[in-house]
């Protein structure tokens, strides 16, 4: 008698795709939670443009880090939240965002009234151009202290760790 299983086994490329969709979406979620926590306006977050960029660069393994940079009216960086991406060609299919770890990373962050923010990405050389994004440089954080945290997003094929400059 033939055995029949109802379990749908996804191929490796499908697992990779689901992991990358998850990571791109969750980077946005982490940034939105951070923006909310530090008292800035989440409605200024250009989610469609940001997520198209993240999806493209994660798919191509070109996204090295995503940064949320908070600047005051003089242009001085008041805080920066960095999400570093690591890729793996194997790993179990998991989808986990550690909000406790995120909040632990944010415990020294203040609110930043009157400040604005932007999302900046660090890409590999020759990365794809994406509509709505342009070249820029990060502001100096020499006057801030870096704190390195743990993984906030775990998706097996791509994981994201957080550090803060406060």
């Amino acid at each position, binding site marked *: 008698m033939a055995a029949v299983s109802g379990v749908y086994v996804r*191929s*490796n*490329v*499908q697992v*990779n*795709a*689901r992991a*990358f*969709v998850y990571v791109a979406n969750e980077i946005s979620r982490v940034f939105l939670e951070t923006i909310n926590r530090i008292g800035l306006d989440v409605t200024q977050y250009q989610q469609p443009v940001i997520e*198209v*960029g993240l*999806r*493209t660069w994660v*798919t*191509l*393994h*070109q996204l090295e880090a995503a940064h949320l940079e908070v600047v005051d009216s003089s242009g001085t960086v008041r805080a920066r939240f960095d999400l570093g991406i690591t890729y793996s*060609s194997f790993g179990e299919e998991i989808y986990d965002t550690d909000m406790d770890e995120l909040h632990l990373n944010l415990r020294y962050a203040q609110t930043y009234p009157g400040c604005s923010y932007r999302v900046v990405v660090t890409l590999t050389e020759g990365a*794809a*151009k*994406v*509509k709505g994004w342009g070249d820029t440089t990060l502001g100096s954080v020499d006057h801030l202290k870096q704190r390195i945290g743990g993984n906030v997003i775990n998706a097996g094929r791509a994981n994201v760790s957080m550090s803060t400059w406060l």
Partner: protein
Amino acid sequence: MVIHYMIEGNTDKINAVDTDDLAELCQFIERELRAKHSSLANQPHLTEKVADGLLNGLAGTEDRVDLGELK
């Protein structure tokens, strides 16, 4: 893997390289599309369209990748 798309109102498809590496797959499809259609040869944002279509097709529950209309 067969990749479906539309261009100038017509449906078309390409046979993609068999790989688990999404970056390789995306770059292969983009190269094929640019070579096959002169209107896409210098399209600056084709990469994001291909990447988005691949993710939507492969991460979903259907075994079909459709990139939609490519301009």
